[in-house]
């Protein structure tokens, strides 16, 4: 084990780790915001409301993230019309391509998690709220959403950790996040074992911190106490 090499490249790897956290952080938060309306629509009683989120989720869950990244980064850049459009300054940048694609991708999964959570709320609770005279919106805001959030939280934390690992794919569109940085360092040092081992440790630390963070959040929201039926 070449310790000197590992210490020498730590600052660059930390730079990469920071970019990874940035990408994942933005994607899972923006993805959550996008997923709330999608998940609500997905659990609607009306088929025409369900149709759009169904198609969206079907597409983004049914194709690999790598393919989606390539479609957005290399695919869209093929069209002269897109290169001339107002969107190009954003789509030109691999950072925004990764953020956008990861957000759209994770939103599909989170929406499906939310749909499951909304449908898992015992109907009696909603009926009780309605019987107390709450309007449909009040029921949604005060009963359905807080209940669904607690049911969905453990599955959401799972999705965040999956995205942390999926973010390694951003290295294929020239971003020097943790995996991209590791590969670039290996290209110079030819020491894959040491460098990938360090990258692995950074990923472990990041996911451990995420696990602790969600544990705290669960305690704060008293998720366990609220799971009784």
């Amino acid at each position, binding site marked *: 084990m070449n310790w000197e090499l590992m210490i020498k490249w730590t600052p660059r790897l930390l730079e990469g780790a920071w970019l990874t956290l940035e990408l994942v952080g933005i994607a899972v938060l923006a993805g959550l915001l996008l997923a709330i309306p999608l998940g609500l629509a997905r659990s609607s009683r009306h088929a025409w409301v369900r149709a759009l989120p169904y198609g969206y989720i079907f597409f983004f869950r049914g194709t690999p993230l790598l393919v989606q990244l390539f479609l957005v980064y290399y695919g869209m*850049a093929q069209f002269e019309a897109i290169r001339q459009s107002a969107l190009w300054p954003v789509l030109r940048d691999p950072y925004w391509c990764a953020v956008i694609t990861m957000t759209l991708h994770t939103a599909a999964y989170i929406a499906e998690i939310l749909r499951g959570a909304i449908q898992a709320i015992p109907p009696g609770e909603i009926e009780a709220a309605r019987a107390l005279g709450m309007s449909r919106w009040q029921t949604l805001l005060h009963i359905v959403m807080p209940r669904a959030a607690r049911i969905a939280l453990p599955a959401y934390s799972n999705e965040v950790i999956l995205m942390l690992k999926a973010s390694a794919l951003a290295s294929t569109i020239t971003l020097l996040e943790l995996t991209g940085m590791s590969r670039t360092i290996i290209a110079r040092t*030819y020491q894959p074992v040491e460098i990938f081992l360090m990258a692995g440790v950074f990923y472990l630390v990041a996911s451990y911190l995420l696990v602790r963070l969600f544990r705290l959040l669960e305690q704060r929201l008293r998720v366990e106490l609220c799971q009784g039926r």
Partner: protein
Amino acid sequence: MNNYKKVLLVAAGVLGLLGQAVAADKLKVGTEGAYPPFNLVDARGNVGGFDVEIAEALCAKMQAECEVVTSDWDGIIPALNARKFDFIAASMSITDERKQAVAFTDPYYTNKLQFIAPKSAAFKTDESSLKGKVIGAQRATIAGTWLEDHLGDVVEVKLYDTQENAYLDLAAGRVDGVLADKLVNWEWLKSEPGKDFEFKGEPVYDNDRIGIALRKDDAELRGKLNEALKAIVADGTYQRINDKYFPFSIY
């Protein structure tokens, strides 16, 4: 016969088969398959190109049976050292950095590094003109290393998994220019997407010797490959393969 004896028999059979597979003297050749015209995978999935044909000619001279396998470029040296294949014929430049990890045969061709950029762009290759430009190169190539070492503070270097992806971004306008092997650039400039681009400036590095990489402890194979290389150059096989790809000699 009870069950565990059957299991033992099957296990012994499997071991026997494995033993045979190892005993057969078959050489595995590693290449990238994404570096036309030197190595590429065609529409039918066959691996071909200059490197591959040279490797096959060498194998024929050594009277060895060879199998060509592809590997991602930036993992090709680790894969060689992990014994996934026995030698690499993938247009690999002989560098001191790489010599720390692998051994090389004598060079089998010589290349240069040269910039390409859009014909319409005023693109000069001196340091002050390049300032602030975005330059693409393939990761883990001498072009990528050269940019980082010589222009790392001046230009923004974007590194790609494959050379083809670097060209895609050049055509899309995400990079101002690409630095790569002259002969690979030459091939791309001939193609339809490359028609609006041209070489810019003089080659920045012109002593790029390309060799076949093999494990450091494989001195015997290295000797055989060097002999076979001399033989195919002497008997005209090399020239025949050269002429198929280039109208000039690249040896």
